[in-house]
């Protein structure tokens, strides 16, 4: 019997193990959360600063190490294994930005890094700003009622 090409393609397209990926992301993402919380607690007790400032310090620490590990060349393997466990937290944003910066460094500071650094992560910033504006608007309207 003749089969449609699309049907054959569908038949031989590998299935991604969604459940397994979700479990890995859940565990590694959870561990990332624990690391973040420990850093916040640590910073606020060591430096005697409020939680809000300790949170900023935690974010900077995670960004710094994501960028450093990306530059040292092994963070991509971690991200590949942990998937959304490392992509969704700030580590994913830092990794995407840093990898693009490394890639385009050789094309110059302005035409290379400047123009391409946010190639992957620019969308996160744009839609982050847009959605925060929309939600603030909703909050304001709801507050007025």
């Amino acid at each position, binding site marked *: 019997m003749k089969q449609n090409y699309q049907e054959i393609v569908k038949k031989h397209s590998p299935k991604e193990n969604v459940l397994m990926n979700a479990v890995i992301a859940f565990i590694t993402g959870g561990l990332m959360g624990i690391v973040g919380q420990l850093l916040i607690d640590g910073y606020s007790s060591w430096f005697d600063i409020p939680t809000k400032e300790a949170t900023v310090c935690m974010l900077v620490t995670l960004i710094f190490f994501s960028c450093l590990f990306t530059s040292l060349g092994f963070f991509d393997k971690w*991200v590949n294994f942990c998937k959304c466990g490392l992509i969704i937290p700030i580590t994913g944003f830092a990794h995407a930005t840093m990898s693009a910066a490394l890639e385009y460094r*050789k094309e110059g500071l302005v035409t290379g890094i400047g123009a391409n650094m946010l190639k992957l992560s620019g969308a996160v910033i744009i839609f982050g700003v847009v959605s925060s504006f929309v939600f603030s608007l909703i909050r304001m309207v709801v507050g007025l009622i």
Partner: protein
Amino acid sequence: MTFKFNDVYINDTSTITGPYESEGPLGKYFDLCHKDLYFGEKNWEQAEVKLVDEAINTLVNKSKINIDNVDLLIGGDLLNQIVASNYAMEKFKNSFIGIYAACSTSTLGLILGASLIDGGFINNAITFTSSHNTSAEKQYRYPVEYGGPKHKSTTFTSTGSAAALLSKNRSSIKIESGTIGRVIDSKVGDVSNMGAVMAIAAADTIVSHLKDTGRNIDYYDLVLTGDLGIYGKKILKEYMLSEYNIDLKNYNDTGVMLYDLENQPVYAGASGPACAPLVTYGYVFDQMKKGKYKRILLAATGALMCPTMANHKLTIPSISHVVSLEVIS
């Protein structure tokens, strides 16, 4: 469109590869394998230029021909404006035709070279092609250090360059005929499933080759496709059987052969313009000369993918060019 060539031979070939290819099962069949992906150059693009340069120089040294006596060079690669080939050609004084047929560049080059030689326009030609994993990755996919997860059907662009010297001088491998393919809309839009994009083009050109030559598929001891990968290979086999009632028994895919799929991080297998000629010139020619295969049909397959068109939500067209190669005793 099939051309039959009376008197064109592949006199010599050269194969240069990167580290992943040399660590694969066919590593020992290549002329030169580099450990570092930069090849001593500053960036990925220049590294690919160096690959092309080395492939041609190695071929010239191996065949002991004077490069000034080569009438024409034909080649292409995957990068925008085929820069690897164009920049490599700056060093050579020979006439040059740059071609782009994605990963089917190698067989298109062989067909064009053989046609010009058999037509009596030129005496000899060098055809070459190259691909570089990281320069292609940068241009078509993500930054090299980005580790976002990939689909199982993704192929791994091979790093390498292969060149062949064609002429009327009799030698063991003859280019018997060639079929130029047509662009086919695969109706597949998934940029991470190139095997599915290209299998339909391979089927189309192989079938028109068999039709034009009046041959049965069993005429060939080995049918090779370019870089369909594990899943594309399965798709082609099933599609050929279902659509054309052709059973591909002695069939393999160079994308499946180049790497150790179990132990190397290459997902569905190798791809890139260099994949088909590296395996064919390196391993398959060796086996042909040893008598394992007498006649092979090489169908290099190219996915004519462009990230911009993929963003426009268009499906990916593909093409395949086929050459028939014979051992002359």
